[in-house]
């Protein structure tokens, strides 16, 4: 038979041990595990996903997105709105004129990132998103969503470098085919965005 009160005593010893170890142990070994947020931050993990952003190469004009609208269609809470930019002749310019994401609706699922065939939409790491005007202030327009490839390289190096390699390979392949048989549309398209 155990002594009456022994369980209570053992419990108190556990809390006492934790009280004492909190003063000298490291966070990983039973010490204080609080991260004091604004001053200290946890290590940013590469795969962490928050809200989507758009990638551009070099300058903001060279946007990867071609306004195909796949992400708009597949977004589960329907928080993306895209409008195609039209060039002077009224033909689609394969570039978004409007690209809005409503951050108040977005549920950070990463679907847009997965379905995008042009490696244009990716999930950001910036999680400190606030607005003073409620949900209207959380609609992000194209200008705010555009971020450079360098930024992408910085936050998710592994993914960005594989995608860069992939794009490079595709470009070289395309160049090779273009050099072999230059279709007439290729030249027009190259001039299009200017």
């Amino acid at each position: 038979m155990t002594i009456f009160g022994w369980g209570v005593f053992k419990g108190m010893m556990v809390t006492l041990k934790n009280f004492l170890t909190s003063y000298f142990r490291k966070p990983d070994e039973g010490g204080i595990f609080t991260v004091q947020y604004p001053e200290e931050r946890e290590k940013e993990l590469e795969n962490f996903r928050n809200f989507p952003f758009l990638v551009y190469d070099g300058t903001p004009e060279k946007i990867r997105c071609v306004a195909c609208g796949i992400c708009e269609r597949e977004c589960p809470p329907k928080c993306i709105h895209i409008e195609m930019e039209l060039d002077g002749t009224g033909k689609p310019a394969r570039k978004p004129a409007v690209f809005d994401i409503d951050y108040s609706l977005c549920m950070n699922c990463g679907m847009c990132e997965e379905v995008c065939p042009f490696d244009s939409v990716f999930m950001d790491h910036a999680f400190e998103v606030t607005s003073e005007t409620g949900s209207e202030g959380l609609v992000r327009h194209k200008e705010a969503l555009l971020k450079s490839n360098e930024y992408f390289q910085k936050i998710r190096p592994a993914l960005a470098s594989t995608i860069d390699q992939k794009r490079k390979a595709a470009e070289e392949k395309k160049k090779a085919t273009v050099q072999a048989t230059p279709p007439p549309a290729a030249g027009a398209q190259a001039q299009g965005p200017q």
Partner: protein
Amino acid sequence: MNISVEEVKKEIETHLPNVKLRLVRDSILIENPEDLPQVALFLKESPRFLLDYLSSVTGADYLTFLESVYHLYSMAQKRGPVTLRVRVTKNNAKVPSLVPVYRSAELQEREAYDTFGIIYEGHPDPRRLFMWEEFQGYPLRKDYAQEDTEVLEIADIAWLETRGIEVPVEMKEKAKTLHAAGQRAVAQKPEKPRP
């Protein structure tokens, strides 16, 4: 471990000759909903199957008729599932309740009633589960149209007025006409999904 449906059907037919059964998509359709408790009780008690555990009860809307689907398992023999289903028309959606046989049907039948409007006769507490009692319509039926949140109901207007908030006259009139007709305000489907 699976139970072959044909085997179950044969067994039921030999023991309960009055019950008409049909195989639909690996499941047993009971032609007459009134036979359901009888079949369920037989399956529960029969030593061969011992289907003592009703896992899931749910409804489904197939436009012309409503369906109530039951998934039975055996905890004692660790076998299953056997799927039972009954079909009722939308106008006369009445299915006998399985609560006397399986208590696990209690909340699930309430849910199916709430969302599909299938009335489970003999249920001890036939209330809506998720929606409030005054709610009209059955949200999971395919013909359900969403409520127009822009249109106020009479009760809402009264509530607003007691608090000194003025309500436009058109809104009041609309509420009155709708109330007189005993209808709900139904929303037009938005033409384009919101940005």
